[in-house]
């Protein structure tokens, strides 16, 4: 097991390295005159040259990348070209916001999607049809549209929630809960409908398997069959979908964080990318890749834990 984890972490590091190089060079090609972007349209050529020297842009690209790489290994991701704020400290204040949102949504999706999916698979009939139709509707409405609707009705018309986030340092927990509720619901709906569909079909498939018939013939109760055997075998499919959804959510939160003015990773990513603020973009990309690697590793571990057959592979 330890060897498996180490191997996965090792390949994760290689991916991180490859992505960092790729991003760095792509940004270099598309960033254009960064000094001009920083200083604005009135800047003189002398000013531009001064700024470029200040940012180290007069160095060759390879030298710049290796300096970034060496610093990154030491935990220093540099500072924003536009605000001079260290990248690690902007990530440190923003990751908790985004992660709270994503993981709360994830846990709720896992629970609700499982309940709905299993209910649809076991009961079939009208319950199943309602779930199926609901899934299509829920899947076809983008999260940000749901977000805007929720704000208009629950925040502006009814005044139950703040229309935009009130989270700041030292905010009491209830400010977090109130500010997070609407964006989490907006994230939830797509996830639940997609997840429930997958779990439904996985459970149906298991219920039709021979071992279920055998268990039934031995007089084991339906409840025990479902919770002890069928769900365990259906779990890998559900977990895989959930992990894909979590990764997809990292994109979905970008727009939601803008609409709700949540000080998370989304606005940082958008601003940094549109300004070609290379150190910040690199930080954001590294964070995203790291999340993807860790989530995939956790899913593999969970699958192994649930189903010993997977461990050998």
């Amino acid at each position, binding site marked *: 097991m330890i060897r498996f984890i180490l191997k996965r972490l090792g390949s994760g590091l290689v991916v991180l390295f490859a992505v960092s190089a790729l991003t760095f060079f792509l940004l270099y090609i*598309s*960033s*254009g*005159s960064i000094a*001009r*972007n920083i*200083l*604005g*349209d*009135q*800047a*003189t050529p002398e*000013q531009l040259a*001064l*700024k470029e020297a*200040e940012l180290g842009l007069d160095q060759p690209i390879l030298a710049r990348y290796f300096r970034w790489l060496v610093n990154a290994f030491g935990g220093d991701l540099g500072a924003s070209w*536009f*605000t*001079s*704020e260290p990248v690690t400290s*902007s990530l440190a*204040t923003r990751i908790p916001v985004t992660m709270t949102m994503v993981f709360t949504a994830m*846990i*709720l999706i*896992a*629970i609700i999607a499982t309940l709905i999916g299993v209910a649809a698979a076991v009961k079939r009939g009208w319950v199943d049809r309602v779930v199926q139709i609901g899934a299509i509707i829920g899947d076809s409405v983008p999260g940000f549209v749901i977000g*805007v609707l929720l704000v208009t009705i629950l*925040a*502006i018309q009814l*005044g*139950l*929630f*703040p*229309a*935009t*986030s*009130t*989270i*700041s*340092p*030292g905010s009491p927990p*209830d*400010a977090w*809960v*109130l*500010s997070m*509720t609407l964006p989490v619901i907006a994230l939830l709906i797509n996830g639940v409908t997609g997840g429930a569909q997958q779990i439904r079909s996985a459970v149906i498939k298991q219920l039709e398997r021979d071992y279920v018939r055998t268990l039934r013939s031995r007089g084991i109760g339906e*409840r025990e069959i479902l*919770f002890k055997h069928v769900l365990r075998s259906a779990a890998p499919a559900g977990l895989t979908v959930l992990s894909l959804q979590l990764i997809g959510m990292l994109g979905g939160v970008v727009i939601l964080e*803008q*609409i709700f*003015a949540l*000080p998370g990773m989304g*606005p*940082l990513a*958008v*601003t940094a990318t*549109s*300004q*070609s603020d290379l150190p910040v973009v690199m930080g954001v990309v590294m964070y995203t890749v790291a999340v993807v690697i860790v989530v995939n590793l956790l899913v593999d571990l969970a699958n192994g834990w649930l189903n010993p057959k997977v461990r050998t592979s």
Partner: protein
Amino acid sequence: MKLGPKAAITAITVSAALALTACGGGTAKPGSGVPAATALTIGALADVRSWDPAQAHVGHTLQPYQAAYDSLILREPDGKLSPMLATAWKYNAANTVLTVDLRTDVTFSDGAKFDAEAAKSNLDHFKKANGPQMAQLTSVADVKVVDADTIDLNLTTPDPSLEYYLSQAAGLMGSPKALGTEAIKTEPVGSGPYVMEKASSVKDSQSVFNARKDYWNKDLQKYQKLTFKILADITARTNALVSGQVDAALLDPKTGKQAEGAKMILAKNEVDWQGLLLMDRDGTKNPALKDVRVRQAINYAFDRKTILDQVMLGQGTPTSQPFGKESGAWDEKLENKYPYDPAKAKALLKEAGYASGLTIEVPAIPNFETQISVVKQQLADIGITMNIGAALTNTFTSDVAAQKFNTMYFSLFQGEPWVAINQMISTKALYNPFKNTTPELQAKIDAVQNGGTDANKLAQEVNKYVVEQAWFAPLFRVNQMYYHNSKVDVKPQIQMAVPSIYNYSPAK
């Protein structure tokens, strides 16, 4: 059935989730609450990049600095320049030395005293800090301390906009002890009406300020607490305004409708103009544009009023001149110089030898897709084909400077005449990349530069010249839609989309 570890984990997560949703549904109450009468919350478009006063910018990016920093000169809402940290200022006869008298009773929030040395340190710092507005002090060769409360600004060349600049980024005064330190980048140290509350301020989320005790000018300090809530997204700004989380915010014609439905009050103000920049007037890349008749024909092609009504919901004023109404260079007679007249446009094209048509190219511009397609249509009606190229990217200023575009549709800020001339007309201007000029025009520009107090009036001649020569094809001046609730009075500030911080006061 025995409860294994898996079941226990499930039980915990279920109850945690239920607890979360329960809090969400039960204790619901708007988080921000209603600000007290002496608190003001402004919905801002972006956070400042650095609180170093030398990094201050123009327009809406100047406003937050005004909370923490006083400027040498105060610019009134109508553009009049009044004393602030400077009590008086005067040019010598040649307009090359500006002598500035300073207040003696002002201290910075760290206790340092404001005096001539402090003013000199700030101006020197601004000149070398490489901020986005560094060009504001380009004409200043050096600053001399005359006595404890007087400085001389020695100029290399007369600069009619220098006094205006001293009311803007270049005039902001920070504590000489803090200038150049790392700390001032994240926490301002000025002599202004408010002091930042660092503990409650989060980068890109909100900046919180408290009224400074013993501030020297109580007339400019109208609130106990001032918060800039950063709302980059226009939907977020609209929602925050109509739900009462912020007291004022900049919207646009479309979201403005929603704000008006919620009884928000509009303080509108024309700040920019939109239209075509016909930049290749010497015909370097597109020979057709060398002929003034072609450029005039383009001007006659547009039904400005209809475009404004359809595209901008009528929020603006049709115009044929690029200078702003309050600038002093504006001329009533030029306002409708080129009425909608396709027949005349075609006749002019025929006269110029382009009866069979011609082609111009513009880059695509994000957010201006509708305007550009309407312009394309109206030009097609007079026989001009407009090809729309690749979209502008963040390298566009370099692309403009490199003469990549011979024509472009754009929105430009309408500043003071000398600022506007150096933005789009002089040979140094970024938006005159082909460096077009004539001896006649240069003489008019020189007259403005040396015109002293008559400079703005003299700029009318420059305006008249570029309108008659059809350097541009302006369509309209655009309204900035600044909305606020009934708890606050807001006076618009000329040439600024977002008012100066002094223009807000509790509603009576």
